[in-house]
C-alpha cells in the first residue's frame, strides 16, 4: 500500500476545465473521501488517478512513482490500482470466483484459490464462488466488486459512489463494514460520494469539491466546525449565514449579540461579514429569558428542528429535544452556545 500525492493537477475536456489546480495527500493506509454535488469533478479526479483520464498540468504520484503528469501517462492496466465502480461493473459472463480471479491470472492456481477464499471470507460471501452476478443482490454484488478490486493487492483502492445503488438503510452499515475491511488490510483508499453520512462513516479525511476545485481537505470535525468556505459550510451539515459587523480582531457583532472569533488576518474592523450559525449553536431552554418566535418546525423523531426569527428579521435554526413541542407563532426560550464564530466575507444570499 502506497501513499498518494496529487500536486496542482488540471484536467480539461475539450476546452472546459474539469479539474482546476487540485492538490491533496493521502498517507499510506489512510482512507480519503471526496464529497461534492454531481458534476463537481470528483469522479473525474478519481479517473485521473486510475489513468482513465489524462491530466494537462501537475502530477500524480503513487508512492515514489509518478503515474501521471503533463508528459507521463502510465496506462491504467500498468498502475495496479483497484477500482470499485458505481455500477460495480462485474463481468456478467464470469461467476464470483472468476470475477475475482480476473486480476490475478498471473498468480499460481494455488495462490489464486487461496486469495479468492481469503477475500470472500473478508467480504462475508464464502460459498458464493460459483454464483453469477445476476444471481446476487445489490449489496452482494457491491462486495464482490470490492473483493475483485482488492485481489491483486493494489497500491490504492478507488471507489466511485460505491453505495449509491443500494437501499438507504444499507448504505451506512455497509460503509462501516467496508471501513473495517480496508483498515484490516491496511489499504490506502479514496472514495467519491455526494452523501456526507457515508463520508463520515468511512473516511479519515474528507475533501469537499465544487466546480472543479477542491475547497477544503480535512477531518469531518474540521469541515463541520471550521469550514473555510461558505460552500463547505452549506454542504456539510445544516446552518444559516447571518449578517455581522467586525468589532475587533476577536469579536464580531450580530443579531445574536457579540460573538467570539478570530479574524485578525482576514478582515478589517467595521467590515460587513457573514457569520455561520449551526442548529447546535442555539440551545432551547424553557427557562431562558431570551425568547424568539417559532417560524417553522420539523419533527425529526429524536429532535425538533425549529426555525426561529431574530429581532433583525433573520432566521436561525435551533435543535431541541423531541418532547419540547411548541406551536408555530409561539415564543421559546433559547441560549447561545458557541465558542468560536465562523466568519466569511459578506455573502449575497442567506444559505440554509
Amino acid at each position: 500500500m502506497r501513499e498518494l500525492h496529487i500536486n496542482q493537477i488540471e484536467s480539461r475536456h475539450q476546452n472546459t476545465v474539469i479539474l482546476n489546480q487540485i492538490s491533496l495527500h493521502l498517507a499510506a493506509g489512510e482512507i480519503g473521501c471526496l464529497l461534492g454535488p454531481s458534476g463537481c469533478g470528483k469522479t473525474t479526479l478519481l479517473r485521473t488517478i486510475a489513468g482513465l483520464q489524462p491530466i494537462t498540468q501537475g502530477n500524480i504520484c503513487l508512492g515514489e512513482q509518478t503515474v501521471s503528469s503533463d508528459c507521463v501517462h502510465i496506462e491504467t492496466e500498468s498502475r495496479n490500482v483497484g477500482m470499485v465502480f458505481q455500477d460495480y461493473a462485474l463481468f456478467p459472463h464470469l461467476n464470483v470466483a472468476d470475477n475475482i480471479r480476473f486480476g490475478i491470472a498471473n498468480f499460481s492456481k494455488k495462490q489464486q484459490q487461496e486469495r479468492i477464499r481469503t477475500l470472500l471470507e473478508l467480504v462475508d460471501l464464502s460459498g458464493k464462488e460459483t454464483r453469477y452476478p445476476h444471481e446476487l443482490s445489490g449489496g452482494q454484488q457491491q462486495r464482490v466488486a470490492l473483493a475483485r478490486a482488492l485481489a491483486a493487492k493494489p497500491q490504492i483502492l478507488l471507489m466511485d459512489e460505491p453505495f449509491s445503488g443500494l437501499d438507504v438503510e444499507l448504505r451506512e452499515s455497509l460503509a462501516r463494514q467496508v471501513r473495517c475491511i480496508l483498515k484490516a488490510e491496511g489499504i490506502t483508499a479514496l472514495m467519491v460520494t455526494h452523501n456526507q453520512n457515508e463520508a463520515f462513516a468511512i473516511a479519515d479525511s474528507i475533501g469537499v469539491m465544487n466546480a472543479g476545485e477542491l475547497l477544503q481537505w480535512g477531518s469531518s470535525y474540521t469541515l463541520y466546525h471550521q469550514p473555510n468556505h461558505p460552500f463547505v459550510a452549506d454542504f456539510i451539515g445544516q446552518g444559516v449565514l447571518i449578517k455581522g459587523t467586525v468589532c475587533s480582531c476577536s469579536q464580531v457583532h450580530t443579531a445574536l449579540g457579540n460573538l467570539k472569533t478570530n479574524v485578525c488576518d482576514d478582515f478589517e474592523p467595521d467590515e460587513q461579514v457573514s457569520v455561520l450559525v449551526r442548529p447546535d449553536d442555539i440551545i432551547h431552554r424553557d427557562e431562558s429569558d431570551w425568547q424568539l418566535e417559532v417560524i417553522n418546525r420539523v419533527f425529526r423523531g429524536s429532535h425538533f428542528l425549529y426555525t426561529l426569527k431574530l429581532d433583525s428579521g433573520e432566521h436561525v435554526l435551533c435543535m431541541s429535544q423531541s418532547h419540547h413541542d411548541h406551536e408555530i407563532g409561539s415564543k421559546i426560550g433559547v441560549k447561545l452556545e458557541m465558542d468560536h464564530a465562523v466568519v466569511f466575507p459578506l455573502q449575497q444570499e442567506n444559505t440554509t
Partner: protein
Amino acid sequence: MTKRINRWSILTTLIALLLTVPLWVLVSFVFEPTNDNWAHLSDTLLPVYIINSLWLMLGVTIGTLLLGIPTAWLISQYQFFGKSILHWALLLPMAMPAYIIAYTYTGLLEFEGPVQSALRTVFETQTVNLWFPEIRSLGGAIVMFSLVLYPYVYLLARTSFANQSQSVMHASRTLGAGPYKTFFKVALPIARPAIIAGLTLALMETLADFGTVQHFGVPTFTTGIYRTWTGFGDTTTTAQLSILLLVFVTALMAIEFWSRKKAQYFTGHNQPLRKTLPTLTGHQSLLAFSVCLLPILFGFIIPALQLLDWSINVASTQLNSEFFALVWNSFSLAFVTALITISIALLLLYVKRAQQHTFIDNTVRIAGLGYAIPGVVIAVAVMIPFAWLDNTVDNWARTHLDISTGLLLSGTLFALVFAYCFRFLSVALQSVGSGLSQIKPSMDESAKTLGANNWTLLKRIHIPLLSSSLITAFILVFVEVLKELPTTLILRPFNFNTLSVRAYEMAADERLADAGLPALLIVITGLIPVIILSKLIGKRHA
C-alpha cells in the same frame, strides 16, 4: 384471476390452428412408413444433403463472424472517417437476396465475364488454361451467403457492444488487462449471446435458401425437397425430407432462444454510460474505413452495379407490357398479402392484449412459427392438405353430383397467399406487437376516466400510436413477399409469373442479363425496409 374463454379467444385459436394446419399435416408424416424412394435417397443423396448443409453452416458461420464482428466493434467503439455513412451502409447487403447476388457474381466471374476477360488481357493470353476459382460451388455459395447475411451478426453485435457499460471495460483495465485482453476476455464474451443469436438467424436463412444452391448446383435439403416433389411427385418422401430439415431449423431456433435469454442477463439492468468515443486518425482511420467498406463493396455496390449494367443493356427490349404485367402481379400480390397478414396480426394481438391469458399467448406464438420454416417446406406443406381437399371434394362431386370441381385451392392464388401469410405472420406480429406494447392498458383506463368511449380511444390513442408500426409491418411483409422465391415457384398458378420467378427462370436458362431488370427492382424495393431499420436504430441511439 382466471379469465373466461370468450368467442374472441375461440376465433383466435381457430385462426392459429387453420394457419398452422400445413405444419401439423407435415409433422404427421413422421408416422408414415418410409418407401423405396426414401431408401434410395438415404443411400445416395441424403448424406450429400446433410454434409453440404453442414459445410454451408460452418462456412457461413466463419464468414459472417469475420465480416460482422470487426465492423460492429469498430462502429461501436471508435469515431473515424466515413463512419456516419458506413454505420447504416453496412446494412445494405440485407436488401440483396442471396440468389440475386449469386446471379451477379456468376455473371461477373464466368469465362466471358469482365473479371476473367480483364485478367486475360493483362496476362496477354487467350487460352482457357488460366485457372480461376469456380464460383458455382459450395465455396462460392458460402461466400455469397456470408456477403448478404453478415448484417444479422453485425447488427446484434453492434447493439451489444454499444450497450456494454463502459465501466466494465474500465474495470478490466484497472485489473491489469490491456486493450486486446479486454476485447477477448470481456467485450467479446459479453456480446457472445447476442452474436450467436445473430448467427443463428443467418444460418436459418442459409438453410432456407433455395435459389442460390440451385443455381450453383450444390445439392442441399431445399433442392432435394424441390427435386423429390417436382421430379418424383412423392409426397411421403418429400414430407419426410422436410421434417429432417425442420429438425435442423428447430435446433437453431432453440439455440437462438437460449442465447437471447442469456443476452438479457449479460446486458444487465445498468444503463450504459454515455461515452465519448475515441477518434482514429491517419492510417488507423483509413484501415477502419477499409474494413467497413469491403463488405459493403462486395455485398452490395458491385452486385448492384452489375444489375444496373444488365438492366440498362436490356431495358430497350425488356421494358415492355410483359414486364409491367410482371410488376403488377408481384406488387398486387405483395400488397394483398401484406394487408391480410397485418389484419390477422392485429386481430391476434388485440385478443392477446385483452385476454392476458397464457393459453392465448402461446396460441399467438404458434401462429408465428412460419418464419422459421424454409419457403420450400411451407410450399410443400400447403400443397399436401390443399391437394387432398381438392381431390376429396372433386371425388364427392363426381359421385354425387356427377360434375368435376377440379382444383379449388391448390394451384390458385389463394394457396399462395395462404402460404405467405403463414410464413410472414411473425414479421407482422413482431413489428405490430412492439407498437402495441407501447400502448399500456393504463392508457386505455386513463383515457376512459377522461371520458373517452371506445371509438375515441381507438381514434385518438391507438391509431396515432400504432400507425408507424403498422406501416413498418406492411413494408416488411410486402418486401418479403416480393423477394420470396421457392414458395412462389412451387405454389404459383399456371402461367402466373412474378419478378422473383422471372429472375430465377432467366438465370436457370443462363440468360443472366435478362434476370437483371426484375432482380434490380427487387433489390430497390428491398432497400426500403433497410432504410427504415437504420432509421429505427438511429432513433434508439439518439
